[in-house]
């Protein structure tokens, strides 16, 4: 009788223990799943942080880019809400591609003197900091144009090069978009000729041929 009592007591204890063990294991498994999910979801953000810090040496520029990309990552995640797999794949792709092009994005946004050497040796690129534009070449109202910092703001598009030229007018400073070919002529052959204004653009207007 005592043996039976002991047996049933043991069975109850064993069952209870198993139940507690099972419940604990279940809770741990759920917690582990949740943690794994959180970590996996945070992977793109983590990659972005590490990747940007690793590829961009300038901390201020790195923070600036990271702020922008994290906000976009947030928008991406919001747009794919309810689709965890799609969200993860897209976020991961976003992060990987952003990191892959991070250095290039930074260099493109940087002032030209620190840009690639290849561009510095391009024969059509001005080799000095700026070019003095005679006010008569541009427009009557232009008062002065000095060092223009041309290399700081230039764009090659559709095989044509444009430069932004800051000029002083009675109304204040303005930016003039200049066709690169015209500018090359000015640099190569600085002749005081009104013909050279061909191609200059001023507030949407176009002078010359």
């Amino acid at each position, binding site marked *: 009788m005592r043996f039976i009592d002991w047996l049933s007591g043991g069975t109850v204890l064993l069952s209870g223990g198993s139940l507690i063990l099972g419940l604990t294991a279940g809770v741990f498994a759920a917690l582990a799943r949740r943690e794994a999910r959180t970590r996996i979801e945070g992977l793109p953000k983590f990659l972005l942080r590490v990747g940007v810090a690793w590829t961009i040496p300038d901390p201020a520029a790195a923070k600036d*880019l990271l*702020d*922008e*990309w*994290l*906000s*976009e990552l*947030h*928008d*991406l995640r*919001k*747009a794919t809400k309810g689709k965890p797999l799609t969200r993860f794949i897209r976020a991961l*792709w*976003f992060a990987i*591609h*952003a*990191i*892959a*092009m*991070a250095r*290039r*994005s*930074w260099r*493109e*946004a*940087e*002032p*030209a003197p620190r840009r690639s050497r290849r561009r510095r040796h391009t024969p059509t690129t001005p080799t000095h900091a700026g070019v003095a534009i005679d006010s008569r070449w541009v427009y009557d109202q232009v008062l002065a144009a000095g060092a223009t910092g041309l290399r*700081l*703001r*230039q*764009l090659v*598009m*559709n095989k*044509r090069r*444009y430069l*932004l030229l800051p000029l002083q007018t009675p109304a204040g400073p*303005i*930016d003039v*978009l200049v066709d690169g070919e015209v500018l090359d002529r000015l640099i190569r052959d600085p002749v005081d000729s009104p013909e050279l204004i061909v191609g200059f*653009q001023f*507030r*949407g207007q176009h002078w010359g041929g």
Partner: protein
Amino acid sequence: MATLLAVILEDINTPRYGYELISATGFASGKVHVILARLRAAGWLIREREDVDPQVVGRPARYYYRIDPDAVGTARTEVARLRQQLAPARPIRAVPQTGGAQ
């Protein structure tokens, strides 16, 4: 570059942010940001940080891009020119061969 510029030029008064441009163009994130950086360095685009409190709006502040009013004309011209260049060439009509070699 022209595709992205065309999206921005659709409505020059509406600033766009990166994810919006990625969705609109279908380009990868890195590609969009390289183009944006290039256009910004050239003075064609103006970049502005959204002036909001992230705690209030419940999201990080976005960075918006809008085209410089002085660059609109040139940008439109270039986009149009590029589209013209990329337009499919007129198909060459096959000349029917009459009386082939015997």
